[in-house]
């Protein structure tokens, strides 16, 4: 009954929601791995390095790798730039953590609203769909604020679907999502 009365646009939105939900779920897994494994807490070279230890510039330049090179007495001490690692780690972790929360939240909201669209439900469809739009826009603003990056046109592309969802579920399909 409901399926027969459902506008084709709502079915299309539901399919897009399912696809995006899967993409967000996979992305959240990748972000979680990055958060836990690939991006451990960075170490400030000045604070962690024992006295007398020097860095071989050719050996390892990754953050936190303040290992002493063999025969390092002859090598000139290389002092990293004081601002090189100091603020980068916590901010990156904050961005990653925020990204993870954003992705997992969007995945859940998109999946719930997809079911809501298909069943023409007011709460799961219209309200949760609107919530997804608001959450995605808010996270977008916060992430840009934290990363101090100017709003590029690529960022606008990321806003297309949340804004369209907000418009569609509250105007065009408002009277369809009533069950």
């Amino acid at each position, binding site marked *: 009954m409901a399926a027969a009365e459902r506008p*084709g*646009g709502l079915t299309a939105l539901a399919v897009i929601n399912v696809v995006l939900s899967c993409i967000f779920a996979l992305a959240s897994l990748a972000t979680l791995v990055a958060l836990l494994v690939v991006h451990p807490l960075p170490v400030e070279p000045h604070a962690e390095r024992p006295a007398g230890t020097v860095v071989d510039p050719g050996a390892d330049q990754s953050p936190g790798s303040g290992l002493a090179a063999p025969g390092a007495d002859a090598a000139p001490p290389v002092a990293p730039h004081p601002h090189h690692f100091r603020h980068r780690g916590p901010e990156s972790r904050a961005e990653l953590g925020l990204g993870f929360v954003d992705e997992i939240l969007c995945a859940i909201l998109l999946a719930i609203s997809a079911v809501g669209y298909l069943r023409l439900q007011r709460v799961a469809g219209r309200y949760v769909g609107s919530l997804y739009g608001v959450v995605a826009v808010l996270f977008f603003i916060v992430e840009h604020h934290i990363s101090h990056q*100017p709003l*590029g*046109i690529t960022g606008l592309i990321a806003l*297309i679907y949340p804004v*369209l969802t907000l418009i569609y579920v509250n105007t065009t399909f408002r009277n369809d999502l009533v069950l």
Partner: protein
Amino acid sequence: MNPLAQVDARHFRLLSWSMFTSTLRSGPGILCLILTLLVGLGTAAVVLEPMDMMLAANERDHLPLDQAGVMKTLVQFSSPMVSWLVAGHMNETAGQRLTPAQQADADRWAHYLLEDRPAPLSAVYMILCFSLPFLIALGAFDQVSGDIQARRLRFLLPRAQRATIFLGRAAGMMLFMALLLAVVMAIIAIYLASNLPLYPLGSVVGWSVRCYLVLVAAAIPAVALCSLISASVGSAFASLALCNAVFCVVPLAPLVIRLASGTTWSSIITWLLPLPFQLQLFHFSFWHVAAAILGCLAYAGGYLLLGLWIFGRRDL
């Protein structure tokens, strides 16, 4: 009897508006809307991001180049490419060398697009112009074919003439695409005017409005061709496949035939669509642009009349 004489103005308005609102609510309409926004903004990102990156690199490395310097570098880099593109367009059939006059015309054209007008907008709108038919096919393939397939048009036929139904739906689809293009181009123009204040606002707005009219003129024949195919094929899926096939095959077939057999007659195929003169829509001469717009409208008229003829005779 003249089929256009059967068109009732009130029914035409009603059917156009109904087509517009139903396209907004339909799955193909939503897909067309999302993809057009994605392609439009994606094209703008491809064109504008390198400039943003160069500006960021300049700022990071304390280089003396400002926005104008970066733009000048990019324009110098891309000018030969654009000149080659428009020169190839002038003489694509024979593969012969350009005459000096043609080469000078091509260089002037490239200069007009890149230096007299906002270069990023020119690049974005030209790419958008050539990707437009594929986007239109996604939204306009099902103007009447789905209803023919489901036999729903018989409920409409006692109230409205066939010509009114066919032309009303085509007009509704054209209205949808015109508004969609307006949204996409407004976003791009506002972004360029606010983030890269290299060009005077009047120049950005003027060039955007002119390119908008040009893109609408380029979109009208594509919608009309989709109307023709939709009226000819009694299946929505077949209509979608055929629309996309025509928009893919017509530009590519002459190239493939020329490469395979070395003959040049195959370029006649491109005249099935308004492709041979589509780039003239961006020409510096007003008369070239006017002639290209008239050509597009003539193609649209031809497609619509043929579609009307088929739709008026087929079993609904």
